[in-house]
């Protein structure tokens, strides 16, 4: 049930993101460039460990909108599982000034590709949603540094089995505060 609601929620964001991208591209087709935003940070939560989050966003910058839309991939090393998130990403800056506040959103699915599965241990990825607020500092040209604080919701699972005698399935819902430092160009 919960998974269903989350699925719907993510679908809603995916559609909205697509709509935003298309309408933006229509109206401002002439004034876009390539954008990259690479970040590293930590995810603070209650379920143990201080996982590291590394991610890189590649997309299109719509100059007049001060908006970037693209694809974010990364690696999240939770104590319980290491995940590879693949997400739709949005960055929306509030002004052109040297120091600009921004909203960011990454929404997608994290995969368990790097986890080694055995017959006794299986992993599962899950949906990820990560809205942030941040600041972009224009002091390092052409690269600009960013600092963001956000909220990362991540579902994942791990299943331990003892042959067929018993199995323990752990379904995680990580809800973490992310603090990330990044470079944007």
């Amino acid at each position, binding site marked *: 049930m919960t998974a269903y609601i989350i699925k719907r929620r993510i679908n809603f964001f995916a559609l909205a993101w697509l709509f935003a991208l298309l309408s933006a591209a229509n109206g401002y087709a002439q004034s876009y460039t390539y954008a990259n935003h690479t970040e590293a940070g930590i995810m603070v939560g209650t379920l143990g460990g201080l996982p590291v989050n590394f991610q890189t966003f590649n997309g299109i910058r719509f100059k007049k909108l001060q908006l970037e839309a693209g694809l974010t991939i990364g690696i999240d090393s939770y104590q319980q599982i290491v995940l590879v998130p693949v997400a739709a990403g949005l960055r929306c800056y509030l002004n052109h000034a040297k120091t600009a506040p921004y909203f960011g959103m990454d929404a997608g699915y994290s995969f368990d590709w790097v986890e080694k599965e055995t017959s006794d241990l299986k992993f599962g990825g899950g949906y990820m*949603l990560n809205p942030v607020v941040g600041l972009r500092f224009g002091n390092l040209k052409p690269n600009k540094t960013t600092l963001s604080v956000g909220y990362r919701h991540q579902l994942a699972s791990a299943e331990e089995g003892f*042959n067929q005698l018993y199995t323990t399935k752990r379904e*995680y*819902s990580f809800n973490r505060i992310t603090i990330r430092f990044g470079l944007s160009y």
Partner: protein
Amino acid sequence: MEAKLQTPLTFRYFLAVSLFISLTFLSSCDTEKRTTTYFGKISYEVDLSTFRALSVSQQPPTELSNSGAIYVYGNYLFINERGKGIHIVDNTNPSIPKNLSFLPIEGNQNMAVNSNILYADNYIDLLAFDISDPQNIKLVKRVEDVFLEAYSDNQKTRIRLYKDTIITNTYKEEISYNKRVEDLLYLSSSGSYGQGGSLARFTLLNDHLYAIDHNDMRLFSVSNASSPKYLKKITLGAGIETIFPADDKLFIGSTTGMHIYDAAIPSQPAFLSTYTHVSSCDPVIVDGKLAYVTLRSGNMCQAGSNQLQVINIENPKSPALIRSNPMNNPHGLTISGESLYLCDGASGLKVFNKTSLKTTPNLLHQIKEIYPTDVLATPKSLIVTAYDGIHQYDYSNPSKLIELSHLQLSKPQYDRIYY
């Protein structure tokens, strides 16, 4: 200016709203939902009269699903269905064993046969069946109130039965780890694998039936086969595993060692000695002046080592170790002719020249990947209980066993792989 800002504002509005939604919908801490699925049993209580009114008459054959002890009687195999009863299998031709019928006996784990009379435990009672015609088995005697531990109350009016030998249960977080382990241990302790073999828990010697459980040995006089008489209980100490009779002596394997009792006076077994070693599970087999003991580590047996020990028991008051042979995970064993057949966990069934075990083990043959638990050498075939059923081999040449048949279980017993 206005046109420029209109669309971006929509986005910003959308982003602000989605931020708000995200933060309110999702709680601010991590959660872990743990679902544990395991095999267990549902227990229920019945009163004494209901329990004793349960049918113990022969029924059409049922599938083997959780087979335990095996007993060979003439052309017939009696295969215990753990906690449920006994399958009667026509083994006239070991290549094509035929499942004939089923004898439902609640709580049954053990059996023994003495002059056409089959003894079987039925929770609190000992039952005696006339099996002179295996097609028409009849209950001839019920010795009441002998295995008193099976009562679930102090007043001895109720008894706990277990329904559906193995089921799958799903528990959530609130079930603690310890609880699950206990249930698992219960499940695994409910099995004794081979009757008549080295994992026996009922044994017959000089007109007496000896029944062991974890702590005690109970004596029955069976001089009148069809009317067993309960004599007494002897407390042996903790962790009793197996009993093997030889030369008027009882060799009792326990988790702490091998106890030797003198049963020259069958009704008065006298303690002779204990051969102590590390904590392990211990099937014992005796061949002349030598005792062969398997020690293994495993969930039920506490920590321990995996060995096949050869012990000199010429003087039963002071048994002496001759040689300890390292093994993988040894279980039941038997000796026939010059060969010793050993069930060695993942290493499978091993055949050794028995005298070589005193010096350098000479492995004659090995059948891998059957996870055997007990082995029985009968005139017609070598019967091996394995996690996936009952295998029979032609063992006329111990160096080259030929599989004759495989009685399959409806579901492989994976738990046996580990014990």
